[in-house]
């Protein structure tokens, strides 16, 4: 059993030499949450995402999935993690369908219906046989989103997913995220874009210079709250 319904960072620090990318961060996210990691560029959001995705090893502290450490859960743990970063994790030389097929097989989830459905959702059903390098940024982003969610991960990690998307695309992504959370996923989004986070996230964690400044339920007036916390720290 490698599934889980909560993830937590326990006093996690990560340093590179004398620079602290993360400093004693403790956070918990449960199924159904849409947690927004907010902060300026270089605040350590990506490091948190990396630590949650098992790609970054904390210098001290630990990451727990449903109360268990990654090492105890083994390689199967990663079956339940989906990551979408700013770099889109797609092979530009392959077609949209080939990209999806490859990652589906990598996760042991093999099925043409799932891939068809994913292409449908990305609004690329009729362009599945075209190479990704011919796609616009928006098309690639939609495809990348479906690629990251193809194996129905429990933990959905987004690192700046909205850069370069138009308003319409953003609203589609946002509704997709709400669906996922309602279906029991743990959604964690790192972004510096407050407008997008406002109204979407159910909880906010404000981060600056590797430190967690505040962890609270989202409420109206996110921008004012952000400014007051960031300003006073």
């Amino acid at each position, binding site marked *: 059993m490698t599934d889980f319904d909560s993830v937590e960072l326990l006093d996690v620090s990560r*340093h*590179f*030499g*004398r620079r*602290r990318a993360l*400093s*004693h961060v403790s956070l918990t996210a449960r199924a159904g949450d849409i947690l927004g990691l907010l902060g300026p560029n270089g605040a350590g959001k990506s490091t948190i995402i990396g630590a949650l995705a098992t790609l970054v*090893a904390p210098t001290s502290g630990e990451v727990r999935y449903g109360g268990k450490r990654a090492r105890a859960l083994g390689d199967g743990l990663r079956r339940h993690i989906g990551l979408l970063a700013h770099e889109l994790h797609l092979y530009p030389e392959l077609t949209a369908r080939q990209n999806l097929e490859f990652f589906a097989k990598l996760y042991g989830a093999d099925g043409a219906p799932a891939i068809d459905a994913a292409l449908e959702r990305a609004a690329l059903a009729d362009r599945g046989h075209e190479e990704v390098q011919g796609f616009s940024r928006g098309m690639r982003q939609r495809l990348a989103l479906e690629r990251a969610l193809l194996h129905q991960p429990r933990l959905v990690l987004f690192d700046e997913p909205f850069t370069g998307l138009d308003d319409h695309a953003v609203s589609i992504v946002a509704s997709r995220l709400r669906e996922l959370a309602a279906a029991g996923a743990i959604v964690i989004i790192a972004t510096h874009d407050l407008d997008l986070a406002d109204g979407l996230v159910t909880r906010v964690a404000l981060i600056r*210079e*590797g430190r967690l400044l505040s962890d609270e339920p989202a409420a109206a007036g996110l921008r004012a709250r952000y400014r007051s916390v960031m300003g006073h720290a």
Partner: protein
Amino acid sequence: MRKIFLPLLVVATAMFAYAPYLIDGAAYESSMGLVQKIFYFHAPSGMVMLVSAIVCGVASALYLWKRNPGADHLALASAELTVLYGLIVMLTGPLWARKAWGIWWDWDARLTMSFVGWLIAISYLFVRKYGGPGSDKLGAALAVFGTANVPFIYLSVNFWRTLHPKTSVVPTLPPLIAGPFWFSALALFLLYLLLLTARLHLERQRAALDALYLEEED
């Protein structure tokens, strides 16, 4: 260690300074004559270099697996000393070779092995200095592979061609030569340990400084 460091350094230096008198008294090797005396420094330096390289490899493997910062410090310090002793070996060797073999350099098993080992140790330091973040692990992999490489290089060049005196020379040295030889080997090894300690101290201080910077950020 701090307390006995200086006395030990004096002892080791004195030993090394005294070594020439012993070596002077040692028997002469008939075919090579005086130049053979370089052997008393050259061969032990080569031994120390090999020991240092192995220490670096083992410490790096330990660091990769256990993530123990102490092992990383040891690996870095012994890599520097591998380069230092390698330099000594590389410089003293040709002096002997020129006289004994009539050439400065030859691609025989030990020369090639020392040269490649030396090159790997230098590139290790290069990686540590210019590799950016993550260079500690990159260097560790380099050291592990480099150490695993040593026997293969030796074997391969040995099959290929060899001009160098065989390893078996050392244990069969006549007592008149063996005494001074092991004396200077001991002196050089002691110096190695002391330099290693000093270098480790430097690395620990650096780590402490980094920790201070980190604390200040808190």
